[in-house]
């Protein structure tokens, strides 16, 4: 009798342990989502104040919202894709070097990758405005090298937005890549060389396929938040570089058009979900271990 009280757990224990998590998710995720869902089909109250809406189950809100903002949708996915590809191109060699070549510096370099998180996301993005501004060193250097015309500016451009996103999401790409490259047994690379594969073939046939879990995780962790991002476009962009996040932001807080904002949010979620599912299917069935 004493044993069962002190040592053996009751069958209810797992549920009790899950309770705080479920409670949190319900309060801060499921409930708001349900709320958002029902907002998305509302219409303005006839003759009511700004911001008062009633439920009329108007599904056309979705079509209207999408048609009106399809340009921003397209731009969001384009910028997010560009930022993801650039981040992958920068992070892969970095993660590879940290995993295989850094030796004793490994931990120092990993801290450096994470170090930007010690500063606020907003501050870092504002700093990019300075870097790419007329007073920064980038623009004068590029002008003196004749890479850009004297009249060209870099701020308030698509370039600045994509650059900002690439920078901000770089650690999310680097860390999963590092984790998965670090797990590769260097002897499999030696074995590949031993079996007549030169450096490039070894990368193509062994290193890259073995790091694929990290590539998939890193690209998802970059692409998903990048597609919904609005801070970079707000600070580094212009009206011509508006992303869907900025539209949702202004519909909610400036125009107080809650139904359209809610419908846009759901459309964005659905689009990301479909893209990600297709992507994982494709990457997963081929070479993922």
């Amino acid at each position, binding site marked *: 009798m004493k044993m069962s009280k002190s040592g053996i757990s009751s069958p209810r224990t797992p549920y009790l342990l899950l309770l705080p998590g479920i409670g949190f998710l319900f309060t801060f995720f499921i409930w708001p989502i349900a709320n958002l869902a029902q907002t998305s089909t509302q219409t303005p109250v006839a003759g009511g104040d700004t911001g008062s809406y009633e439920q009329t189950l108007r599904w056309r809100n979705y079509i209207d919202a999408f048609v009106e903002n399809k340009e921003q949708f397209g731009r969001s996915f384009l910028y997010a894709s560009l930022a993801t590809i650039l981040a992958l191109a920068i992070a892969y060699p970095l993660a590879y070097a940290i995993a295989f070549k850094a030796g004793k510096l490994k931990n120092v370099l990993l801290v450096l990758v994470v170090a930007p998180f010690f500063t606020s996301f907003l501050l870092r993005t504002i700093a990019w405005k300075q870097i790419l501004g007329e007073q920064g060193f980038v623009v004068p250097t590029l002008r003196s090298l004749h890479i850009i015309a004297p009249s060209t500016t870099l701020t308030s451009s698509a370039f600045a937005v994509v650059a900002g996103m690439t920078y901000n999401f770089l650690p999310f790409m680097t860390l999963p890549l590092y984790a998965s490259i670090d797990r590769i047994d260097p002897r499999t690379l030696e074995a590949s060389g031993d079996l007549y594969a030169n450096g490039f073939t070894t990368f193509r046939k062994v290193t890259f396929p*073995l790091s694929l879990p990290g590539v998939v995780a890193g690209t998802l962790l970059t692409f998903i938040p990048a597609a919904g991002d609005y801070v970079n476009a707000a600070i580094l962009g212009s009206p011509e570089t508006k992303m869907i996040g900025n539209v949702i932001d202004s519909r909610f807080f400036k125009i107080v058009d809650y139904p359209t904002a809610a419908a846009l949010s759901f459309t964005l979620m659905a689009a990301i979900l479909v893209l990600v599912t297709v992507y994982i299917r494709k990457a997963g069935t081929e070479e993922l271990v």
Partner: protein
Amino acid sequence: MADTSSIKGDLRLSNITKTYGDFTAVNDLSLTIPEGSFFALLGPSGCGKTTTLRMVAGLEEPTKGTISLGNTDITYTKPYQRPINTVFQNYALFPHLSIFENIAFGLRRRGIKDVKPQVEKALELVELSHLAGRKPTQLSGGQQQRIALARAIVNRPALLLLDEPLGALDLKLRRQMQIELKWIQKEVGLTFVHVTHDQEEAMTMADTIAVMNEGEIEQLGSPADLYDNPKTAFVANFLGQSNLIKGTISGNDGDNHIVDLFGQKISLAKNRSHAVDNSILAGIRPEKFRISRLETATSGNLLTGGKIEDVSYIGVSTQYQVLMPWGQELMVFEQNDDAVAPFSVGENVNISWESGFTFALRGDEDAEAGMEVEPEEIIDEDE
């Protein structure tokens, strides 16, 4: 890919030295491995045998010296340009590829279009044809070992390197694989260079063994040569066990030396002595000794005044520790096959042996060299 099939012949290492900072892993090593032989590099952890193998594979560059295969200098050739394949210590199979693709890897890299017949033949050789579609992680250690072997052999390299290939297997499987490897080597007729710390493994499989210690070759020869007539205390102790007794050459008798061991005279064939002066270590293997009760007649060399200190019965034989008058304990392995009643602790006995079994080492050698190493316990190799 470059055509490497024309490079073949004996492997020749000339004055190879490899240093890492202050540490010399391999010291001025020269060695010729004849084409078609099964050659073992045997030694304790850290003796430089794995480094030597990695230099032959092209995974390390020697600090000094040259490596050639036949008439081709391959010292600085990239691993993928050498007609040499390796069976790695932990197999290093590609976890993302099927067994079939693992074995086909080398063939595909060399641009061979129809790999199927060769891969299937290699799978048949290691008797695992039914596993072609699996992934490496779905295989047992022994199966992975065979696949690693098949993946190397399928390329018909001029030289196959085996780096502690059986180290991760349990004893029974290891014994079975030793016999199989030997059979496969005969079957395919390739040159095998096998690195191991397990003296029994080396002796079972290899035609020629090089015993390595501290970056140098202590002795090279057939298993029987090394065992019956070791040149150094290290070889005498590392390859099996030896009783080494301090003595002095006190006279000659035809082809034999007369040796004084703490006042008792024994005889030693002159051609079995590696001593440089009169001071020697007389060596006798424990199973060559015979224990006799005091009144029994004996032939050959005789040492008197022994006392049984310890008896261990181990089935095929009984192992005795016999304390001699000069304070040294000698090891004696007696087969349990004669009518002599077993000896018991405290009994006073004599020890005798055929004089032809005696070997002699330099008297200034450390009689315990190579003994502190317990080969079976070393799992991780010199990295």
